[in-house]
């Protein structure tokens, strides 16, 4: 019982979105298809569909975030939900009110969905275990564990440029060890059945036994990027210099920073991606980030459609109605 996949209901439908791990390929494809139906909403004159009218979505961000928070807020608003943002720094948690006490109070105010970001791995699971049955939880990043909507928007972006996942070679470059984004991307890409998934970084940034997740490990950038269809760069946090993980940003950029020269060994139509925010001159050269193969900004706008899809799906609306109601606007 304990190991039941908490995010699925008895029929196997999404009730929460906590992690990509354990989702079926078809479930991921369904989310991407639904997101496709929302992509035009942003271009309409009235950028709203009434799917979540009367629902209340609470953004609970225990960690700072600009992009994820904003796109979740926009997504909820475009679905006509009421959105509440709890600023955790000034909230009662600092006064010793426990996480779960705080949730009970919010539940008492008749909320329908919690979008949670927290610094501890497993925080979203903990919350999902304890919320009332009518409430859904969406993980917006928990510690080093998972960031499922980021991975889904990355898959969405890849699918818009590459017709099929199966033949692809994808390289994820950078701080795999501390990255929840990388973990979710790895689960998504292996579930979608890509042929060659690589992680590229020095040993200090690669967790032991990462091969068990279905990736090939490279320590040399040029070997790792050879013939790649997609290159995903990860953000390097400045504090990694302190833990004796890296000597300096300069040396990191020298060996693992993405430049046009290093990118030359990849396929000519390679996609360059980054979950943002980017550190220019640390993990990626401006020339590449702003160059023709970069889809970094496209990822951001796709994030809204993907988050709309996830929110509407976990709150139980069939995606077909979604489209027709959206078109009726």
């Amino acid at each position, binding site marked *: 019982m*304990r190991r039941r996949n908490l995010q699925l209901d008895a029929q196997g439908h999404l009730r929460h979105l906590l992690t990509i791990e354990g989702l079926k390929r078809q479930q991921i494809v369904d989310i991407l298809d639904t997101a496709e139906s929302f992509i035009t909403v942003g271009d309409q004159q009235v950028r709203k569909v009434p799917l979540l009218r009367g629902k209340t979505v609470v953004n609970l961000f225990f960690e700072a975030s600009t992009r994820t928070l904003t796109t979740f807020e926009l997504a909820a608003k475009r679905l006509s939900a009421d959105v509440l943002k709890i600023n955790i720094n000034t909230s009662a948690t600092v006064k010793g009110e426990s996480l779960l006490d705080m949730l009970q109070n919010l539940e008492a105010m008749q909320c329908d969905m919690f979008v949670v970001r927290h610094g501890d791995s497993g925080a979203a699971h903990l919350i999902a275990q304890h919320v009332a049955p009518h409430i859904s939880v969406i993980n917006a990043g928990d510690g080093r564990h998972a960031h499922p909507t980021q991975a889904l928007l990355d898959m969405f972006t890849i699918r818009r440029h590459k017709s099929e996942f199966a033949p692809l070679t994808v390289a994820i470059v950078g701080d795999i060890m501390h990255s929840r984004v990388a973990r979710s991307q790895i689960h998504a890409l292996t579930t979608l059945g890509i042929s060659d998934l690589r992680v590229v970084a020095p040993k200090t940034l690669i967790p032991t036994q990462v091969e068990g997740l279905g990736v090939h490990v490279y320590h040399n950038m040029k070997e790792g990027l050879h013939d790649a269809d997609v290159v995903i760069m990860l953000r390097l946090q400045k504090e990694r210099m302190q833990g004796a993980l890296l000597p300096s940003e300069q040396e990191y950029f020298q060996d693992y920073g993405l430049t046009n020269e290093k990118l030359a060994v990849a396929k000519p139509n390679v996609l360059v991606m980054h979950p943002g925010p980017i550190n220019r001159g640390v993990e990626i050269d401006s020339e590449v980030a702003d160059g023709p193969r970069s889809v970094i900004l496209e990822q951001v706008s796709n994030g809204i459609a993907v988050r709309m899809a996830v929110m509407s799906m976990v709150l139980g609306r069939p995606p077909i109605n979604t489209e027709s109601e959206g078109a009726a606007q």
Partner: protein
Amino acid sequence: MKISILGGRLIDPANGLDQITDVHIAAGKIIGLGNTPAGFEAGQCINANGQIVCPGLVDLRACLREPSQEYKATIASETCAAAKSGITTLVCPPDTDPVADTPAVVDLIHHRSMQAGFARVLSLGALTQNLEGKQLAEMGALKAAGCVGVSNAHTAVKNTQVMRRAMEYASSQDLPVFLHAEDPSLANGGCAHEGAVSVRLGLPGIPEIAESIAVARELQLIEQTGVRAHFCQLSSERAVKMIARAQHDGLSVTADVAAHQLFLTEMDIGYFDSQCHVRPPLRTQRDRDGLRTALKRGTVSSICSDHQPHDTAAKLAPFPSSAPGISALETLLPLVLRLVDEDVLSLPEAIACLTCHPAQIVGMGSHLAVGDCADVCIFDPEQYWELTTENMVSQGHNSPFLGWEFKGRVTHTLLAGHIVFSTKT
């Protein structure tokens, strides 16, 4: 009170006894086995037909939370849980608040346990003052106050010179040193075994070498200083192999393992089950098997509970922020009996791991010959029962074994000839 225990299967590993016989008790001591001694008239008879009669269990590590954390548990509540579980002697680590680095704290713990009267509580004194790893604690005074050994608990002594001096001094006082082998910089910030599960869940890892590197350092210091040393709650196959090698080379070291490490692995964490957050962390299947083999071969001689009762809130947190530890007194004997069912140990061997072996490490006896102290555990080896929060006596209900069905249940516990627990009279 004069008591006769009639018709039970007496298993006393220290004396090599395993036979169906009667046990007669008066004035807190065993006064006869078999035939009733002349002139003895029992005030109470315990019918032990079909049951096992063995020495009271000795648990080498139980945190009782008092002084300072009475909201988690008290000496009275936990010794009561011990009595229910057949445990008559508990060894309490020094990491209380205040730390047990003065006789006053040791006296308080002793006094409270005497007041409660459910179990004998032995204290380990601090190895260094306030467990800071800088200045030696007053080990002579701690020994005089009744401490059976010294330990720095889970706080590593980083400075190797301090550790060497502490061992030398403990050796001069003829006190055994109890060691928790964990390199603090390698374990820093970790909460799960560094391996397949930690990488999947994104949990900061504690590598196996955090244990084995510490064991390597301590073994060399033990050899150098000649101190009597005991390794507490080893978790990895590599570490127990190093202990086996040292024992083979003639070094006098002993080791124990926590019962849960013989059954659970990192896989049991599932999706962040904080009940499986323990320290040292649950490791791999291979480590679990290695610990079982070490037990079979006698490298590891004792099994302890590593009892750590917590309040509910301590476990209601994201895995890395939850408090490590299991409320484990009540599953100690049932888990060890399961090892018998799984053919890891014979029944007398299993009982030895809970009685005479740990007793020897703290310098006390644990046997049931005529003239011995009547600490006795009687259990029904065939009774099935399920662990639930309702039937737990410990104030802490934090256990990954809730809902498990166990075979073997304590029916009576005697402490110095007094019945401190019985299912029915």
